[in-house]
């Protein structure tokens, strides 16, 4: 297959970027989007040009590093997938494809299509943990958890930190990401002692990083490759309201 690519090129966070147009030919229909970019880069290297920098690691939808904004959508035209699991057969032969980095103030561009998403890590550092005493390993099953609660908590725990929710949101809000962690730990007994402090601290960090507010448009859940549901956000809202209106039973 043959494509015309409009690719965002940017030297570093400080330089202004611009689009460059490239042609790629002979792309197999079953090539993934990243493999198509590999083909482009081989061509650029052969021509003595600078290859396009893009993020990737596992190439099987689990690491969350392959964030690209393709034809106006996070991870391209299909819902709920990562870029590495997007295949060229989903495009038409001869298509023009526009590729931009995930754009948000807290996601500065490192180079071309690679952005720095460590703002998300800093949100996790504020509350994505539980405190336990170190020592010998606790007995298995010493804390019973109902199957239904464990399943629901696991659904929220599957976030891979890709940042597609931020990229898709009109306000560049990190609510789906943050709420997935809040909801995950709020459903488990181990998450209770820090439950109220956690939600307050993570929301404060989200604001401090410069992410926007949530308008409940739901764009995030459409693009989220882990299919984190919007109920995560409802759970965060609920916990945040309670945490601020009632005293913390675990306060030290």
């Amino acid at each position, binding site marked *: 297959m043959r494509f015309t690519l409009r690719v965002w090129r940017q030297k570093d966070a400080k330089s202004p970027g611009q689009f460059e147009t490239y042609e790629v030919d002979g792309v197999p229909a079953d090539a993934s989007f990243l493999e198509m970019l590999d083909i482009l880069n081989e061509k650029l290297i052969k021509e003595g040009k600078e290859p396009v920098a893009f993020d990737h690691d596992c190439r099987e939808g689990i690491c969350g590093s392959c964030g690209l904004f393709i034809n106006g*959508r996070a991870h391209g035209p299909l819902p709920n997938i990562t870029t590495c699991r997007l295949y060229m057969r989903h495009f038409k032969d001869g298509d023009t494809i526009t590729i*931009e980095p995930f754009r948000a103030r807290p996601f500065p561009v490192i180079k071309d299509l690679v952005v720095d998403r460590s703002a998300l890590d800093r949100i996790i550092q504020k509350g994505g943990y539980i405190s336990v005493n170190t020592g010998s390993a606790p007995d298995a099953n010493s804390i019973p958890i109902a199957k239904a609660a464990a399943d629901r908590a696991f659904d929220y725990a599957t976030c891979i930190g890709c940042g597609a929710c931020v990229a898709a949101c*009109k306000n*560049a*809000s990190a609510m789906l990401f943050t709420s997935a962690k809040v909801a995950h730990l709020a459903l488990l007994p181990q998450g209770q002692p820090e439950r109220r402090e956690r939600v307050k601290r993570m929301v404060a960090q989200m604001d401090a990083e410069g*992410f*926007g507010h*949530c308008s409940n*448009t739901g764009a995030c859940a459409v693009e989220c490759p882990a299919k984190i549901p919007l109920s995560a956000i409802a759970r965060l*809202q609920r916990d945040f309201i309670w945490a601020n209106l009632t005293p913390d039973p675990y306060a030290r």
Partner: protein
Amino acid sequence: MAQAASPAVGWLHTSVGRKVVMAATGIFLMTFLVVHLSGNLLLLRGDRGAAFNAYAEFMSTNPFIRVLEVLLFLGFLIHIYQGLYFILKEKQARPQRYTLNAAHANTSLFSRTMRISAVVVLVFLIVHMRHFFVEHRILGTSLTMYESCKIAFENPLYSAFYLFSFLLLGFHLVHGFYSSFQTLGVILNARVERLIRTVGIAFTVFITVGFSAIPIYFLAAKYF
């Protein structure tokens, strides 16, 4: 920002707290719309405004309604202040816009146009307040409330503006109704979401069709 305010209300200055304020005032304003519409529908009784004027008289003199009116003003002011804050701040989190953004693929028209519907409703409110509140309660016109309405709605230009504003208010409500319950953390599963969305659409149709019937009634009575 949160740190600057006192701890008891500081949380209302976070992005999540500000949305809780929007949702609470939004729900309050939605209940007000129901009350306002039920009164206005008296205009359609065909009694040359007898029932409506009595109702307007009651609303502008009853002390209990006076207190509610102050709350209503506050509700509007807070919702509008907070709304304008979000509208003005929105672009800050993404200073470099996308060149190509296919937002229609993952969001509804109603949620995407909240800012536009908000501004139209705000303009409407100003015109509306000038026309009825200022005229009757501050300048003390000699017209009855019914006569004021009749003059306003028999003007096709005013009626068109009114109908357009309520269409846009409908847009605001389709998303706003659902969104406010999501903001308050009510929607924990798909069943509740379906329920809220259905009730929200029924509510919106009631409000939009109800208010729109009034100018249509007056125009029809004048021209047909």
